[in-house]
């Protein structure tokens, strides 16, 4: 087995060109992902999770751009790759699953077309062979009568079925990595667990790496081996799931855990973090969390805390931990 990680993100910085100067949505984010491993990225809405996900595909939409950092995937530097080489990686070595399956699938193309094209974009095989692969993947996501399903349009599917199709599309070219951006958020609560279980099972059986992006720490603890907590564009804590979810270090992660609905005793008040995550134009100097942190001290307002080892296998960015 090679020791090199599948994906190595180093100091990734993604900015958006705005009228009043640039806005840093992803600020020096670093993490590694080993082959077949599963990483969860959690954080409130607007923390920069999706932008990070698209950044890995080098597919940040305008006016965004990768301002710095490195993205080493299977030994190749994605930030420096020509567009055609990137295209051959997207949907082939790295697949992406978006949040809302109704917005993701093209309404005027059949499921078959949308599956077959994904294969033919990367492999020189016949349409019949591609269709056979598509059928196989539909079976893998447990959708009945795949033959008939191929000829149907997205609106003929329920939300859950659509997301199963999107997962099937992600599997088409047997990628090494799947990036799933809030894959269950838009779905009915009753089927969220099913979809998550399906995704987890497939990643295990096909030995695919997974980056699961979500705002729900409970979801990510079920699936991921490691968790990265993002706040205002930075990773504030990263480590093994048991550590981050069981013994959180960073005050923000602790607050996030306290805010988990399951932990609240019946009738008890939800232990929420006071205030809101700042918009990117108003991130405080020093620690980005300082203005909401109940423990905040003088040093927190002055210096940005580095991401350092704090507890077993765990990195956190906080001045007050040692």
């Amino acid at each position, binding site marked *: 087995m090679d020791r090199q990680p599948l994906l190595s993100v180093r100091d990734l910085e993604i900015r958006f060109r705005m009228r009043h100067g640039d806005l840093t949505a992803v600020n020096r984010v670093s993490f590694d992902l080993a082959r077949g491993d599963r990483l969860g990225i959690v954080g409130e809405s607007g923390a920069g999770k999706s932008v990070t996900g*698209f950044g890995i*595909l080098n*597919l940040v*939409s305008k006016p965004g751009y990768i301002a710095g950092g490195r993205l080493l995937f299977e030994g190749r530097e994605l930030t420096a790759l020509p567009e055609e080489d990137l*295209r*051959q*990686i*997207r*949907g*082939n070595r790295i*697949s*992406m699953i*978006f949040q*809302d399956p109704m*917005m*993701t*699938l*093209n*309404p*005027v*193309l*059949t499921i078959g077309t949308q599956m077959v*094209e*994904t294969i033919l*974009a*990367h492999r020189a095989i016949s349409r019949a062979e591609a269709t056979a692969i598509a059928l196989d993947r539909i079976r893998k996501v447990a959708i009945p009568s795949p033959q008939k399903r191929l000829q149907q*349009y997205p*609106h*003929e599917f329920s939300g859950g079925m659509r997301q199963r199709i999107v997962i099937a*599309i992600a599997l088409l070219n047997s990628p090494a990595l799947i990036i799933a951006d809030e894959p269950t958020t838009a779905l009915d609560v009753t089927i969220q667990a099913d979809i998550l279980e399906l995704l987890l099972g497939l990643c295990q059986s096909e030995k695919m790496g997974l980056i699961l992006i979500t705002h729900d720490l409970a979801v990510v603890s079920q699936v991921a081996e490691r968790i990265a907590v993002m706040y205002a564009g930075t990773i504030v804590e990263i480590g093994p799931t048991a550590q981050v979810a069981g013994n959180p270090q960073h005050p923000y992660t602790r607050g996030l855990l306290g805010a988990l609905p399951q932990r609240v005793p019946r009738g008890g008040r939800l232990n929420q973090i006071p205030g809101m995550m700042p918009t990117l134009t108003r991130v405080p100097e020093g620690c980005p969390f300082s203005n909401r942190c109940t423990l905040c001290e003088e040093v927190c307002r002055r210096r940005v805390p580095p991401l350092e080892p704090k507890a077993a296998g765990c990195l956190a960015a906080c001045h007050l931990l040692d």
Partner: protein
Amino acid sequence: MFAFFIRRVTQAVFVMLVISLIGFTIKQSVGDPLREITGISVSAAERDALREKLGLNDPFLLQWGRFLARALQGDLGNSFYFKRPALQVILGKAPATLELVFSTSLLVVLLSIPIGIYAAVRPRAWLARFFMGVSIVGVSIPVFLTAILLIYVFSVGLGWLPSFGRGELVTLFGGWQSGYFTSDGLKHLILPSIALSSIMLPLFIRLIRAEMKEVLETDYIKYARAKGLKPGRVLLVHGFKNTLLPVITVGGVQLGTLIAFTILTETVFQWQGMGAMFIEAVDRADTSLIVAYLVFVGALFVTVNTVVDLVYGLVNPMIRIAGRR
């Protein structure tokens, strides 16, 4: 789909009834049918007898019914000036107009799609800005001015292209006189087609650009890119196919405008089509011919729109399904 088909055809029939009613009302209030068949030397008593015999004193609805029945058999009355059935006169002139409309539509389609897509993909490029600028100017200049400018530059000034008439024609089966098969005929088509397209082209470029820009912002386009599809396929199959629906609808409606503007264009270029004929008919107060023109063009318009809507149903899976249920 079948229910949708029936519904759409029923609507078309209803619209045709309304058109025939309008046409018939014009005929009743403006024209004097006796003028078509009698001379000046007929006495008042004879006229009254004839009026009674022709049923011109019958109730309005009954007469409209008769008008409809005759129209269905292809009888739209006689042209006072040509002394021939009005429909025959129109059919003789129709090929000129239809060929002009067809080459104009072709020009609009062939230019607006690539330019519209280009302007949507590269909105800041100077060429895209140039196209958008020109299209603003184009849309604000009246057609007859464009036509006269074209004639002034390309016929009078440069002497490259003929300025009037249809040139050398070839008679096809059914007596269709076509200018498509001789180089002279094609040359004569150029300036009128450009003049006529000058109203549609800016509209379509702007429409396609706007729709395409909106589509390019959607998640499914980003997803198509994330699947690693080739840029051309993302743009044309995933992007343009989704803009096709509104474009087809507007296209169907604008065809009516196009036909209306042939009246001006044909007059300027002395193009011997239905449009020029209509102006002459108005000059001569040839009521039957005017009404026949309205009914004929109305029928053409309704037919095309119905076909367009049915095609729309084929392109749009939602309608297809809704119709199937």
